[in-house]
């Protein structure tokens, strides 16, 4: 232990003062062998990486392995990282490649693109019978049955554990690409550009996938709220 401490370079001693959220600092520190930097990276991304991996592989155990392989590839490859993307994107690309390889091995090959809304089987945001018919004299395409007002629900209802479980169920029932998009955008807070870049989607297609994923969650919550309040 003592030997290891002595081998550390002077800057790792003051690691708690280093701003690892700055990509170029972080990469320098990783290359220099700063253990705090690597631990910071694990804390920052491991759970999000596993969350995304689970959308693409068959089991949680497979996802754990894919993420572990990703980290080993990061350790192995950090000297060759060319900074053409952010470190985050680079790590996630490695994850996607590992997940693809794993998908093939598990005979659960995931097609990451080619997910067209026309074929995803999710249907429109609201069923057509919620609206007046197109030939309605005054209000074609306007509400026949208006959505309910969630703001009148007891505030604790929206925060309840059961509500979150409904959201999780709805997301888990989505096709993988929809799941990946809503996970990155709404759970991990990625921008539209970052998601398009990682998943090779056009901005328009990405938004359609996100919209349809959110629509599924909304519909699940509506059904759930109706069931618990009537």
């Amino acid at each position, binding site marked *: 232990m003592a030997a*290891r401490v002595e081998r550390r370079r002077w800057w790792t001693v003051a690691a708690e003062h280093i701003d690892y959220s700055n990509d170029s600092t972080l990469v320098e520190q990783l290359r220099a*062998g700063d*253990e705090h930097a*690597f*631990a910071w990276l*694990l804390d920052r991304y*491991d*759970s999000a990486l*596993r*969350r995304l991996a689970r959308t693409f592989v068959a089991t949680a155990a497979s996802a*754990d392995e894919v993420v*572990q392989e990703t*980290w*080993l590839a990061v*350790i*192995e490859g950090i000297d060759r990282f060319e900074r053409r993307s952010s470190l985050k994107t680079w790590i996630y690309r490695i994850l996607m490649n590992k997940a693809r390889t794993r998908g093939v091995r598990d005979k659960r090959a995931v097609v990451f693109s080619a997910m067209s809304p026309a074929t995803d089987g999710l249907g*429109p*945001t*609201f069923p*057509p019978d919620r*609206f007046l018919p197109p030939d309605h004299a005054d209000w*074609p*395409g*306007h*509400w026949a049955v*208006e*959505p*309910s*007002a*969630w*703001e009148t629900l007891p505030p604790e209802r*929206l*925060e309840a*554990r059961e*509500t*979150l479980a409904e*959201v*999780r169920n709805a*997301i888990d029932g989505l096709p993988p690409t929809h799941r990946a998009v*809503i996970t990155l955008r*709404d*759970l*991990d*807070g990625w921008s*539209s550009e970052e998601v398009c870049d990682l998943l090779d989607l056009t*901005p*328009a297609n990405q*938004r359609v996938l*996100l*919209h349809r994923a*959110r629509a599924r*969650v*909304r519909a699940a*919550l*509506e059904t759930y709220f109706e069931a618990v309040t009537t």
Partner: protein
Amino acid sequence: MTEPGLPDVPCQEFVELVTEYLDGALTNDIVARIDAHLGECPGCRRVLAQWGEVIRVTGRLTETEVDHLDPDTRSELMTAFRRRQSS
């Protein structure tokens, strides 16, 4: 219902555009038509509010689904990181 010259956006169309509307991905023209429609349509205002709730509640999953890296795996990875240094 809406300003003269602004063709109304039927509710059924608006509900397919909410994400693009919130992402700022629509043209000024359609945004103006949607804004005019929202001013008149409580049902679509509810949809917009629900969309906000969906996004907020979905984001909360990260609080409840805390998924700590298993300590053995973590220490294996730290060891692999150290080994890279010494190799």
